[in-house]
């Protein structure tokens, strides 16, 4: 979905999200959070990539050209780029939406970007072409082909880390991959970031609906995904 958001006067970072009133259907009052898939600062074009899951996303598919949408955002903290070196992005499913924005940003700063994209079937792999066109190197793994096990992804990642001068690693969409990224970041002393999800009410930090637990030093802390996140340093992530 592409929107004209000319009223927007703030920069939009990859990893940030918008809180969206998908319809004025009284039955479904809450807004839904969607990551920025792409934002063009020049044309004020904002794009979302979303999976149709329940009523909210269903309602969004009914929108037609020219309709308007009530959005709050950009919200939350986005990704930060490394000072130098190449990026490794490991995305599963629709988690690629938010990493896509990161890839675009990194490419626009001429950083090298490698993307490992995981999905159930090859048909579920999203935006491979667009990423390639941006100049990212894309590796796809799927459950169906038996290539998506954590071990396979670990092997592939380690190869890339060793051979491609990766300095930062990012992930979204799977807690198993999140754990892997956490291990890789620690082992290889890489900058690492994780984009998280949580059910939200306000989206702006008032209601504490979106709590998640992070590790800061030796302490566990409860923070708000919408405000302190959705992107966290991978070292802080508490994943089970």
């Amino acid at each position: 979905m592409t929107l004209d958001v000319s009223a927007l006067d703030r920069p939009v970072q990859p990893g940030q999200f918008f809180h969206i009133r998908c319809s004025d259907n009284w039955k479904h009052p809450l807004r839904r959070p969607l990551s920025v898939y792409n934002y063009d600062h020049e044309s004020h074009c904002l794009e979302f990539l979303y999976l149709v899951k329940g009523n909210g996303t269903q309602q969004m598919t009914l929108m037609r050209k020219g309709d308007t949408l009530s959005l709050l955002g950009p919200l939350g903290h986005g990704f930060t780029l490394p000072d130098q070196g190449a990026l490794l992005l490991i995305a599963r499913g629709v988690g690629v939406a938010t990493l896509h924005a990161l890839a675009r940003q990194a490419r626009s700063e001429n950083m090298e970007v490698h993307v490992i994209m995981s999905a159930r079937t090859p048909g579920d792999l999203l935006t491979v072409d667009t990423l390639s066109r941006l100049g990212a190197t894309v590796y796809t793994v799927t459950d169906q082909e038996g290539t998506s096990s954590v071990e396979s992804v670990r092997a592939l990642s380690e190869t890339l880390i060793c051979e491609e001068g990766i300095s930062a690693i990012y992930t979204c969409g799977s807690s198993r991959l999140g754990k892997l990224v956490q291990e890789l970041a620690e082992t290889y002393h890489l900058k690492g970031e994780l984009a998280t999800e949580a059910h939200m009410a306000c989206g702006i930090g008032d209601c504490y609906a979106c709590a998640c637990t992070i590790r800061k030093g030796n302490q566990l802390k409860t923070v708000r995904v919408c405000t302190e996140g959705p992107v966290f340093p991978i070292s802080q992530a508490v994943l089970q």
Partner: protein
Amino acid sequence: MTDLSVRIGSLTLKNPVMPASGTFGPELAPLLDINLLGAIVPKSITLSARGGNQTPRVCETDGGMINSIGIQSKGIEQYITHILPVYQDYDPPLIASISGESIVEFELLAARLDKQPGVAALELNISCPNLRDNGQAFGMSAETTDELLRTVRKVTGKPLIAKLTPNVTRIQDIAEAAERGGADALTVANTFLAMAIDTETRKPRIGNIMGGLSGAAVKPLIVRLIYQAHQATDLPIIGSGGIMNGQDAIEMILAGATAVQIGTATFVQPNAMNIITDEITDYLERHHIDQITDLIGQVDVS
């Protein structure tokens, strides 16, 4: 000029619209004109720090939502040093919502806040369904309510607003107990204990199994509770539950409310409270009513 001002005990509000505790914060400032509110009501504060409940903490239900935040708080001292000052520069009086795990904790909280000039009144959250086992709350017992109010009354001169639970057989009994105990006003009411199950995963849609239902779906129940409480006591009532627009607010005022709190509507539309205040004014003007107080409890049951 239409007069929107109302009195809650010794406190005068310039209009009857205020946030419901737990749904409001300074983050709304860019989206809502906080100075146009009748009062400011921050999230309930507990004595010591609490982590809150398991996630998911909210889920959507038809025409409403269930929450089980469980009052995540950093404790009263952090509230005084960090939360209260944030609101100092706004005009509306601040009503501090306090939530104890025992009567003694309510007493300590009230005593501590009694000395704070930035606190205009206390709302006693004796009705949170998310703190104790299976949605139990102090406000489910008339005796406990009476004793709790009586205890808190002794330690503060600030107006006391008892926030009642709707999950009771006779709200009249609890309203009377709160009045006897020394409450200056009632908030009717907190959320309804509720549950939703995902039929695909068979899991409760709230981490804590049950939570509190709010939003439009509960409005006809809240209107009834306000009407009953208004019949039972002379205390001013703050209606809370399901208000989505000015007409809903007027409905509660006709049932007996003096003021209203808005929660879920703010999640839907962050400036809902400003819009609702305007809609109330429009209604009064259209009906040639000079003062909103002329409407309180004026449902025509003849």
